[in-house]
């Protein structure tokens, strides 16, 4: 994989405690990176997929090495989320039918979910956490499909991973997070506002930074980084809008829990960017809902 640098624009108010905040961010990322790392399989998959001379057999061989991943991918491929008309029983068929890049995105989501384990139950109910994340992924994916986006699975992965920064915080600074949750509850303030006030950055920024660190494509990392500040997305504003919107919808519908008590405010420009009629939103949610349960069953099992 080539050198991949991810530069995110810094928020103006961060300039005051600039150094301190940067150090804090670096600490969080480094600590996480030392404990959790993206499985090699993802990197290899990426390489094969991008290689002009590789074949489906190469892809199949790599994925098949991880039995768990293989099983989950096949289950996903046969889930209502895809609704393929016949059974997809092999990875090579999944690769041709779903698409290699789409498979790669799914593999990423599955892999990351498998990484974060052993997070204290007192901070967050992991099942409930992934429930929110998966619902966000599905709704973001539905928005992307509605928008006729070419790689909806990437949006799906970004949706699943959008709160990965919270996991980083839970594992690295659990006490501070606990304090902030209490503060949020007492002050009836959004948790990410409190994060913002405290560190000059939010869990979204942390998640985005982590994914970038892992050489995850920017089309996934930036939407995660900016999902609470979508106007900052410079390269993938549309994908960011999907995540921003889906997060709010999931919070509004009360699907799962990510530690946030309140529904975040909607950035109006994202709505304009998506160009989806307000009336279609109900249709989109109705379309996404039946996929939730089974996708949760497939992906949520190992996360719990």
């Amino acid at each position, binding site marked *: 994989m*080539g050198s991949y640098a991810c530069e995110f624009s810094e928020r103006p108010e961060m300039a005051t405690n600039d150094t301190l905040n940067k150090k804090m961010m670096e600490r969080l990322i480094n600590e996480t990176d030392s404990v959790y790392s993206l499985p090699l399989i993802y990197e290899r998959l990426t*390489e094969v*997929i*991008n*290689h*002009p*001379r*590789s*074949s*489906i*057999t190469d*892809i199949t061989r790599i994925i098949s090495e991880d039995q768990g991943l293989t099983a989950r991918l096949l289950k996903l491929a046969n889930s209502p989320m895809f*609704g*393929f*008309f*016949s059974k997809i029983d092999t990875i*090579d068929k999944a*690769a*041709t*039918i*779903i*698409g*290699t*890049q*789409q498979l*790669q995105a799914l593999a990423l989501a599955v892999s990351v979910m498998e990484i974060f384990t052993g997070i204290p139950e007192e901070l967050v109910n992991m099942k409930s956490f992934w429930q929110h994340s998966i619902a966000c992924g599905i709704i973001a994916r539905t928005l992307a*499909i509605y*928008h*006729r*986006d*070419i*790689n909806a699975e990437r949006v799906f992965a970004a949706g699943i991973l959008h709160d990965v920064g919270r996991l980083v915080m839970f594992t690295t600074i659990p006490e501070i997070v606990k304090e902030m949750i209490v503060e949020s509850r007492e002050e009836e303030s959004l948790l990410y506002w409190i994060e913002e006030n405290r560190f000059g950055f939010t869990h979204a920024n942390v998640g985005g930074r982590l994914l970038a660190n892992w050489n995850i494509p920017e089309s996934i990392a930036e939407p995660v980084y900016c999902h609470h500040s979508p106007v900052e997305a410079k390269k993938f504003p549309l994908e960011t809008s999907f995540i921003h919107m889906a997060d709010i919808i999931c919070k509004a519908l009360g699907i799962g829990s990510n530690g946030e008590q309140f529904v975040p405010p909607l950035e109006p420009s994202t709505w304009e960017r998506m*160009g989806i009629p307000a009336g279609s939103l109900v249709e989109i949610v109705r379309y996404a809902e039946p996929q939730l349960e089974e996708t949760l069953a497939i992906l949520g099992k190992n996360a719990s």
Partner: protein
Amino acid sequence: MNTAKVEIDHVSYLEERVSYLEEANCNYAALLDMLTSCSDFQADLNRDKSLEGIYRATLVHLGRLFPFQGMGILESKDDNSFDLAACEPTSCWNGLSNDIDSAIMNGTFAWALKRNQAITVPAVEGNHTLLLHAIATQTGIRGMFIARLAGKNRLIDAPTINTLSSILLTSAYSLENCALYTILREHSQSLEEKVQERTAELLTARNMAEAAALELQISNEQLSNEIAERKRAEDELIKAQKLESLGVFAGGIAHDFNNILTSILANLSFARMQISPSHLIARRLEECEKATVRASELTQQLLTFARGGEPVKKLIDPVAVIKEAASFVLRGSTVRSRLDLPDGLWCVEADGGQFSQALHNLLINAAQAMPDGGEVTVRGENETLGTDNLHRLPAGPYLKITVEDSGCGIPEENLSRIFDPYYTTKSQGSGLGLASVYSIAKRHGGTVGISSKLGEGSIFDIHLPASPGNQPAGVAVKEATELRGAGRILIMDDEDFIREIATEILQYMGYDAESCADGKEAVECFQKAREIDKPFACIILDLTVPGGMGGKEAAARLRELDPDAVLIVSSGYSNDPIIANYQNYGFNGAIRKPFDADTLARELAKLIPKSL
């Protein structure tokens, strides 16, 4: 050793990495080149506004992206069906069609539409892989890209696929623009057509309105012409009715007047008979008689004017009539007459009254054409017409009388109408003058012509059939003895003074005269005379008996009783057809009232054999 092996492995791993990265780099560079040339592609798309052009440009561009074995684009139809619309190379059309059919059959096609991304599936038949990619924008599916990749399980690397997607998206937007442009153009065209239609309709409506207005104007004019015509006709009708009532009135007066004249004339002539011609008063009586004849002629003219009718023809010397007419009409006026009447002019068989009436009218007309005075020339000529003459008259001898004035003339446009009844240019004219000239000429088997120049005068010429060689009998006073006769004569007349004078004349001439007042009495007298064996040698019957049996009916009765009876009709109405054609009504002769003694005697002498 181990270290070395590890190092070698490490080196070979690094070499492998380098070679992979170089290759990937190459690939990316090529894709970048390819994307750079997208501007060309865009230009192609923009240049060609047709769907076919966009398909072609897309295929050409994608051909540079990847060595496809064959590729094609299916057009998305309005009814949601798909048709292969373009193909590259064209030779793979059938193969691609088969691939499409099987992709549709096994659901791959629908899946590709749903996924809106590149789907690569092994072909059902043949050793190749099928790539399907929907060509869609956010608003809708515009088509489907289909391509063959060599090998059964071929894979296209992600960067290439993404480039492909991006190109197809561009293509999709171009197709959409094209479709929208077409719709827009159709709209504007239909709008334009509608505008044109409406304009044409308005124009037609305007033309129709104009035509209708014109028609209205024309019919308006026609109507006003018709109204004017009708008004004229009404005026003429009123005039005609006026004339008719005048005619009836004049006819009535003339009839009575004629009877009076008959009495005067009969008495005068009777008186003259009883004295010697050398007697001092004989000449006075003769003058009186002449004046009475003229008065009688005047009444004739009145009757002719009132009724028209058949001329009672007799041989007439035109010279005397012309002279008399000229002096009568022009007397007292500023118009002089010049008569050019050579010796030997042929006589005409004509009704004297009508002949002189025609001349009178022509002369009156000439005099009126010269209100400031002038000269009217009356010329008499003998003319023998051949067949095919200009006057369209039968060949034969004719008397031509020309009346020429130096008056105002008649405009050419009026020439054809001057003989029409009631046509007049004079404020006091009846419009009957020239019309009666025409009808008189016609009735006599002749014709009348006109030539005129405005401001120079008019020339009328009358042709009347002539009788060369014959001379009218002069009004010679014959010895009374020559006229004497004998026999019983019955005279029927409603006027007692006529009965009286007639009886006296007849008795003077030696006849045994009896009289009665109407036809019924006449029949009774006739029967009585036969019973006593004293039959009448001749019966004179007045034609018109107001309130009683007239001459016509009486004649028919008498003729029944005696087919050989000698019957003479007498009437003041010389124009009555019975007078003109008395034979047809069972009469042997006719006497026109007023008659003088001479005429009566002559007629009787003609019909009653001396031996009786």
